[in-house]
């Protein structure tokens, strides 16, 4: 077997795309419709814009320390002890994220598709796939992503095209009824669910000068567009009230597909779309955490940690995702500010400190 080192830019694009869509496609339309009402789709575009800003910030940091992962940068910027502490804070954030992701998946499948299957069975099965992926490493994941990508695009196109006949444009009028404030608010809120910072772990692995940065940017844009289209479709077809009141609006949307009384009840197939992106997201998180632990504790080998970690994930999943209402409440009230800290505030601080440090170094 030939060992390839590094990921191709195209593969990195796909990983970014998958991470962006991940859970967001299922959960965000409801929150957006709640705050931005008829303008949920504009809010979703706002969130895309915020994501682009974040990506630009990440790229700027990456350029200060080329070839370093976020965990290495922490240590370079903040010094050894503080940097390690910061890395641990990020690792904790990733851990909670992985846990809620697993919980979300479990609740989604058990409440919409297989109510009699124990939620644990679904989560463990899914985790086994993630474990395999973690053992194989990022390069294999990148290739798997490449294999999945055409399917994701195909299924999304099926969803999009088969829903066009049901569109009712009246659902999105009036535009900007309450001005930009709720729209921006909702957009900001939803942009906190596309944890693109995870990719800072893998950015240095991308082959080719600056190609990874481009892939990161375009991946975020493509993912953001898919999210916006989903939000737009949810509102256009379900209306605001039902988008807001659905636990999983995107799934409710897939349920309404009916082309000529013939092409219908296909949500069971379209669910693949979400499961595939879920898989990319969870595997990326898994790998980034392994990498982080390895950096922080200077381990030689990371694979021994896979099993303890997966047990930890399951435990976190069972304890964070207590019930749908509890999680919805956390998402509405706590999560955005918590994620904001990790996605924007800390990276921005890192950037400023890093910038002044390199400037000082240069002037010496």
């Amino acid at each position, binding site marked *: 077997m030939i060992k390839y080192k590094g990921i191709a830019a195209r593969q990195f694009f796909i990983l970014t795309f998958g991470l962006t869509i991940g859970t967001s496609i299922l959960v965000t339309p409801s929150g957006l419709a709640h705050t931005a009402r008829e303008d949920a789709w504009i809010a979703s575009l706002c969130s895309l814009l915020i994501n682009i800003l974040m990506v630009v910030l990440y790229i700027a940091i990456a350029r200060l320390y080329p070839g370093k992962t976020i965990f290495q940068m922490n240590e370079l910027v903040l010094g050894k002890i503080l940097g390690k502490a910061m890395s641990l804070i990020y690792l904790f954030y990733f851990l909670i994220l992985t846990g809620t992701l697993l919980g979300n998946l479990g609740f989604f499948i058990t*409440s*919409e*598709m*297989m*109510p*009699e*299957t*124990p939620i644990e*069975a679904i989560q463990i099965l899914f985790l086994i796939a993630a474990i395999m992926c973690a053992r194989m490493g990022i390069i294999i994941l990148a290739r798997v992503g490449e294999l999945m990508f055409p399917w994701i695009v195909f299924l999304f196109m099926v969803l999009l095209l088969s829903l066009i006949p049901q569109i009712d444009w*009246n659902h999105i*009028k*009036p535009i900007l*009824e*309450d001005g930009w404030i709720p729209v921006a608010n909702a957009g900001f809120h939803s942009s906190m669910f596309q944890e693109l910072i995870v990719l800072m772990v893998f950015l240095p692995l991308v082959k080719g000068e600056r190609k990874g940065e481009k892939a990161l940017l375009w991946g975020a844009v493509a993912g953001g567009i898919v999210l916006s289209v989903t939000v737009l479709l949810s509102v256009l077809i*379900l*209306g605001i*009230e*039902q988008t807001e009141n659905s636990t999983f609006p995107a799934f*409710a949307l897939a*349920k*309404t597909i*009916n082309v000529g009384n013939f092409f*219908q*009840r296909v949500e069971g197939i379209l669910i693949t779309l979400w499961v595939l992106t879920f898989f990319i997201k969870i595997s990326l998180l898994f790998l980034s955490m392994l990498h982080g632990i390895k950096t922080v504790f200077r381990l030689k080998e990371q694979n021994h940690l896979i099993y303890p970690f997966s047990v930890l994930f399951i435990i976190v999943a069972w304890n964070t995702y207590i019930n749908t209402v509890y999680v919805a409440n956390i998402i509405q009230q706590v999560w955005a500010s918590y994620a904001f800290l990790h996605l924007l505030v800390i990276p921005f601080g890192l950037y400023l400190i890093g910038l002044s440090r390199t400037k000082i170094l240069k002037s010496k």
Partner: protein
Amino acid sequence: MLGRTILSVLLMTSLIITSGCWSRKELNELAVVMALGIDTHKDGYAVSAQVLNSSELATKSGGSIGSLPVVTYKSVGKTVPDALQRMLSMAPRMLYLSHVRVLVLGEDLARQGVSDVLDYISRNHQLRTNFFMLIAKNGNASEILEVVTPFEYIPANSLYSSILISEKKWAATGKVTLQQFVNELKQSGSDPILSGVQLNGSSAEGQSVENVKKISPSTLLQHAGLGVFKGDRLVGWLGEPPSKTVNYVLNRVESTAGYVSCPSGGIVGFTVNRADTSLDVMLSAENIPRFSVKMEIEADINSVQCPININQPSAIEALERSIEDKYNENIEKHVKDVQQRYGADIFALGEVLHRKYPQVWKTYRSHWGESFQSMSIDVHSHVAIRRIGSIIQPLNQEVDEK
């Protein structure tokens, strides 16, 4: 290497033979519910479910014991799922709700409010949102589900397709899905409507297969106009012409028929082939909204029951004008009637205002129910007669004395 190959072959074979589903439900363990009926009861809800008798349906000859293709189970419970569970004391199989085509609500229930029932229907993951909803006019939903129907083996399917066809060709019924209903209910500028269905004949006779053995079945299901809701409560019924008006205003008319009187007595009948309605709102100087309904109608003449000379362009034009007048007058009258009698905005005019003037809407939002009653609505219709059928002059024309 050989070990690996053997292992992978083994794994692949086990993939084929050990696959399965945790919560699998085979068809022969399911009772597929085709229609649900819900009525009020002193102990909660009386639920009736029309269940497919699949063995009877599959075996046309032999094996059949001559029972009906469906069975209607009835039970009572504090909540709808409670009643459905209790049904299992009679039904030998698990009720499967994914294929419900029609949901019938009893009139009493509709008058008390349907939100509580619809909560269960929307919350249940098995039920989809694309079935049609009906109200059992002057009766109970259970009676509707107990009638054996001609043409269709399964009465629920008969109800389903008759809604489709009557909506398309008659335009005095409404095919309202749960999704539509909930949207109209939840929007502050609109009230929902539901189509009514009633028994034409006696309930007792309709229950047996003897009903369809006659050339003229003694009991039939009949669609009966639209029910007007104010919020989630049924407040009244519209007759056939007002029901058509509602569909015209909501732009749901595909084709229908009508008539208009001739200047010299008698009538001319026409078919509407296309009807396109747009609702608009203007603000007066004092920010009082004024609604307008614009209709574009294409009609064909289908019967002439008066001696007019139809061979003249002016005659067609005169007919067009008189049809327009009739539309303007009738629709205005019916809308006013709904406004004054029910105060329920089933035309979704509030949403029209909301879409066009969101700021003005804010001042009306909280008391739209009362404001709606005093809104003025103008109707402008434009009728174009396209075809006059296979003959030109009416057969009823006086013979010219040459």
